[in-house]
């Protein structure tokens, strides 16, 4: 919803929040993921909950909330709360601020005394996080601290150990260290957001003393938007690719009219430098696993000539796909999405032309189209929208671009074979399949949250849940990593399930089965099933049960269990189907081209 994208009007959101909520819930055909979010507050959280809900609904996440009593974050986490236990949160958000720091240093205290104060503050919070970890083992998001709105020591507040600015900076450093060491713990960086908003306007002592809001009520939309970015990233709602216009987006001028020698890029003048900074910003997205593509109305020759200028930061090779032609841009983006096998809704489309933006956002549901203004606002507008919020960079993220390129190479060689089986054999595929291993936990959790198409149950899991399944002897977990002569695809298949006793026999229930679309039709799912059948047999399991829950995106696996030799047991009105494989009967491996382990 445009009203909830940056640049938004915070007053409008606050005033119309009930109507906005109604409109969000009235949208047809939204497949929400449901999440239980506990807010443990050190100050009033009512509006934070309500505005956060709007942003999450907009991202396709339907939250159920539980709020602690006023300023009971410590007690609820450390001593426990039955209500919270019963709620069983998927995620806990600890909303504390500089108002919750108990003791600040005073001038005259020794360095040892100040260190002791710092330890005491830090350990109080660490205790909250450790208690939450033990009690719920769930994802935790914690605010860091905003800078104070006054400075007793003036500029020395930053450098002197007795200054609040210094004390808060050191405390934030310790919080950040904890976040780096804990995969399921994230910092909501209100230190940054409050600075961006304006520290003076953020800290509204009136709102604190009247309502016990630790930040100005007017700042809540900015605050909640930033927090929602982390939550949607955790639950796999990040964007994956950027589709870029060229003329007046990547450089100043029109390459087809002006000629490549006359466009503004490089360092010759102010406008060129501005576009160069934008190109650098775009290019840096490759390093965090974002795919770059072009959707430009141009002759391809001219488009390439622009990118091939020696002073152009972005080169043709930086893009996975370049569509420079005279087709409508929405069609070009849909075609690009099909070529690289991701959803068109996982694109961010950047274009200086409002007509093109309108066309694309009108015809591709779910795509993000930032309302960029003048070129000097491009970076800010893209950045504040948090499309690619990073919640941990896996090895996969860093190599993603190369892998998609290798896939396009594979597609080319396929044409040389008459027979698909021969093609598969020519790939010299080698799989590594094993129980969930610590090095892959990040990637496994990421896949459960990002895979939509080849996904039988679309069960979303946090890293903490994945680790718990891996440790539970009732569970069988398997990841699959696939390599071939074109390169390593990384971890592309994830499945797990659990044993249950039934009529004195053991049955195995498949809870999740997914595969990255990167390796469709390579037979990886058959190699994975072999592993499950072997492991189940060795555990004395008599039957494997699987189910298919339809979503808007997973039609390709409707007949998955049939292809794997399962019998259909039943199907209900919503299309949920239930399947069974009898292990007392002979099982025939369907894997023809993959060597395992």
């Amino acid at each position, binding site marked *: 919803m445009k009203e909830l994208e940056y640049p938004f009007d915070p*007053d409008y959101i*606050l*005033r*119309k*929040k*009930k*109507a906005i909520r*109604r409109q969000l819930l009235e949208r047809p055909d939204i497949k929400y993921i449901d999440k239980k979010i506990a807010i443990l507050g050190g100050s*009033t959280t*009512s*509006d934070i909950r309500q505005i956060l809900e709007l942003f999450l609904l907009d991202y396709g996440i339907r939250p159920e909330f539980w709020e602690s009593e006023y300023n009971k974050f410590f007690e609820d986490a450390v001593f426990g709360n039955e209500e919270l236990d019963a709620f069983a949160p998927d995620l806990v958000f600890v909303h504390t601020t500089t108002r919750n720091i108990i003791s600040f240093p005073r001038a005259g205290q020794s360095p040892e005394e100040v260190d002791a104060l710092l330890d005491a503050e830090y350990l109080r919070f660490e205790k909250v996080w450790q208690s939450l970890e033990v009690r719920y083992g769930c994802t935790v998001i914690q605010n860091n601290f905003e800078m104070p709105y006054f400075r007793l020591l003036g500029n020395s507040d930053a450098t002197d150990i007795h200054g609040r600015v210094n004390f808060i900076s050191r405390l934030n450093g310790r919080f950040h260290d904890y976040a780096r060491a804990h995969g399921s713990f994230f910092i909501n960086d209100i230190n940054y957001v409050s600075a961006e908003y304006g520290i003076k306007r953020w800290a509204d002592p*009136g*709102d604190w*003393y*009247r*309502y016990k*809001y630790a930040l100005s*009520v*007017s700042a809540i939309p900015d605050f909640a938007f930033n927090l929602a970015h982390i939550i949607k990233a955790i639950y796999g709602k990040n964007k994956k690719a950027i589709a870029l216009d060229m003329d007046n987006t990547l450089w100043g001028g029109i390459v087809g009219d002006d000629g490549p020698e006359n466009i503004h890029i490089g360092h010759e003048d102010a406008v060129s430098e501005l576009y160069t900074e934008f190109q650098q910003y775009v290019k840096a997205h490759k390093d965090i696993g974002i795919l770059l593509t072009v959707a430009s109305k141009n002759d391809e020759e001219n488009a390439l000539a622009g990118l091939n200028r020696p002073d152009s930061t972005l080169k043709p090779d930086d893009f996975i796909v370049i569509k420079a032609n005279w087709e409508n841009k929405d069609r070009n983006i849909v075609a690009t999405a099909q070529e690289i096998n991701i959803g068109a809704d996982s694109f961010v489309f950047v274009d200086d032309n409002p007509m093109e933006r309108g066309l694309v956002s009108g015809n591709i549901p779910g795509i993000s189209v930032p309302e960029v203004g003048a070129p000097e606002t491009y970076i800010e507008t893209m950045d504040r929208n948090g499309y690619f919020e990073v919640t941990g960079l896996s090895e996969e993220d860093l190599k993603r671009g190369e892998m998609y390129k290798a896939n396009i190479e594979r597609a080319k060689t396929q044409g040389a074979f008459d027979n698909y089986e021969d093609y598969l054999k020519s790939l010299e595929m080698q799989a590594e399949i094993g129980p969930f291993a610590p090095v892959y936990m990040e990637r496994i959790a990421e896949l459960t949250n990002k895979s939509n198409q080849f996904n039988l149950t679309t069960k979303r899991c946090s890293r903490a849940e994945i680790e718990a399944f891996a440790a539970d002897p009732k569970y069988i977990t398997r990841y699959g990593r696939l390599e071939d002569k074109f390169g390593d695809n990384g971890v592309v298949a994830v499945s797990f399930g659990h044993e249950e006793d039934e009529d004195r026999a053991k049955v195995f229930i498949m809870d999740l089965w997914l595969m990255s679309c990167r390796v469709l039709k390579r037979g990886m799912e058959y190699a994975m099933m072999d592993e499950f059948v072997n492991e189940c047999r060795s555990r004395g399991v008599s039957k494997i049960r699987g189910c298919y829950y339809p979503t808007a995106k997973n039609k390709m696996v409707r007949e998955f269990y049939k292809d794997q030799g399962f019998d259909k047991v039943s199907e209900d009105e919503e299309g949920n189907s239930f399947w069974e494989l009898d292990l007392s009967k002979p099982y025939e491996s369907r894997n023809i081209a993959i060597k395992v382990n």
Partner: protein
Amino acid sequence: MTREEVFAKLNEVFRDVFDDEDIVVTDETTAADIEDWDSLEHINLLVAIERSFDIKFTMGETTGMKNVGEMADKIMAHLG
């Protein structure tokens, strides 16, 4: 701005904040007359009023408003 104009604008704010197109506020309207008007929504209401009239209530003012009539008086005082 006349008192009538202040009331017309106030009415819009009330309708937006409580998402109810049927609300008509008068001098005597109090929190008891509007279903969702609790202490938390009161905060939203004040912020929305401040924004739409481009004024800022002092802390003292916000604690002493008994009904919409008094609210309108305070707004008129700010508008000068």
